[in-house]
């Protein structure tokens, strides 16, 4: 039905992976907890009430006590898909998204739908994985696959980077968009433990073009060898970076600050600066 859309991620598989991760999530939820704290901090800076709050992502604490949670498993209030949001136009005061948007096949579409569901002057707060996430693992697996198979297959997600997100937020029609990011580096004794943690977070590989079937028996040993040579701390543990991009944007409303019309200034800049205005003059003689 939607064959014209890009299909980077297998969304049906995502739902399975999430459901499988849910029972033991408490052993792997440190990132979700950290981003929840960060989003709640950001919300506390805003002195306003948000009566209707919705959170996308059921693996982390709801952003407010009364927030309606939409997720992929039955531990939320609604099961839904970020790519087809089931929310009415202008119905939500605060919409937060906690580590869910990185698996959207159509990220601009998801952002547009978020904006659509927000009331005018409603707030969107999001946390998502950014382009620096797991770069050590990506590099190590690629190097190992190149030497074993002569080519690489996608094993780590293509993440959006911070610079792109600013543009996407604007394209989706958000007013006063702010994008910033933080990198958290976690260390693991070996690749196996890192994979177990990723699966535990419900973030196992769901790339549609992922390599199916048998993996070369030496692949993970070789990747780990490379990893340990290039990306370790002093204790020889493997460093794994997670870049979290934070998104803030408002549904447009006339009360928000607006840029002035060009040429509408009634004072000259030279007067404000206490300096003399000098004409550039004709630089080129006729």
């Amino acid at each position, binding site marked *: 039905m939607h064959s014209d859309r890009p299909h980077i991620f297998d969304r049906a598989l995502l739902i399975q992976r999430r459901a499988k991760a849910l029972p033991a999530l408490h052993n792997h939820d440190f990132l979700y907890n950290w981003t929840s704290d960060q989003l709640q901090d950001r919300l506390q800076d805003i002195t306003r009430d948000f009566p209707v709050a919705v959170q996308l992502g059921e693996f982390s604490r709801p952003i407010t006590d009364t927030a309606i949670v939409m997720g992929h498993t039955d531990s939320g209030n609604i099961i839904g898909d970020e790519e*087809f949001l089931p*929310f009415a136009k202008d119905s939500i005061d605060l919409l937060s998204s906690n580590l869910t948007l990185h698996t959207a096949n159509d990220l601009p579409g998801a952002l547009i739908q978020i904006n659509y569901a927000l009331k005018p002057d409603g707030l969107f707060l999001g946390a998502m994985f950014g382009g620096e996430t797991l770069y050590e693992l990506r590099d190590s697996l690629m190097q190992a696959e190149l030497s074993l198979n002569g080519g690489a297959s996608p094993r780590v997600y293509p993440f959006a980077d911070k610079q792109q997100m600013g543009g996407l937020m604007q394209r989706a029609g958000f007013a006063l968009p702010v994008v910033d990011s933080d990198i958290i580096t976690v260390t693991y004794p070996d690749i196996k433990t890192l994979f177990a943690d990723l699966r535990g977070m419900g973030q196992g590989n769901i790339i549609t073009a992922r390599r199916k079937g048998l993996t070369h028996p030496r692949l993970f040993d070789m990747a780990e060898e490379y990893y340990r040579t290039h990306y370790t701390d002093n204790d020889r543990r493997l460093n794994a970076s997670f870049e979290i991009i934070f998104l803030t944007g408002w549904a447009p409303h006339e009360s928000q600050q607006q840029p002035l019309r060009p040429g509408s200034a009634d004072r000259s800049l030279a007067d404000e600066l206490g300096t003399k205005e000098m004409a550039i003059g004709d630089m080129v003689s006729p």
Partner: protein
Amino acid sequence: MNQLVDPKLLEILVCPLTKVPLRYDGEKQELLSDAAALAYPVRDGIPIMLIDEARKMDDSEIKK
């Protein structure tokens, strides 16, 4: 007994495909989208708003 959908949810939910309002069938535990001819199931009070999980409605069920 079947758990009913929280009225708070009914106020904001629409059909994810067409964004039109839904009719709630409390007996069958379904949220009906006449525009898309899809019935979204409700399990234990949790609306499943996935297009792939929705039941295709018969012509006779659709209210115009």
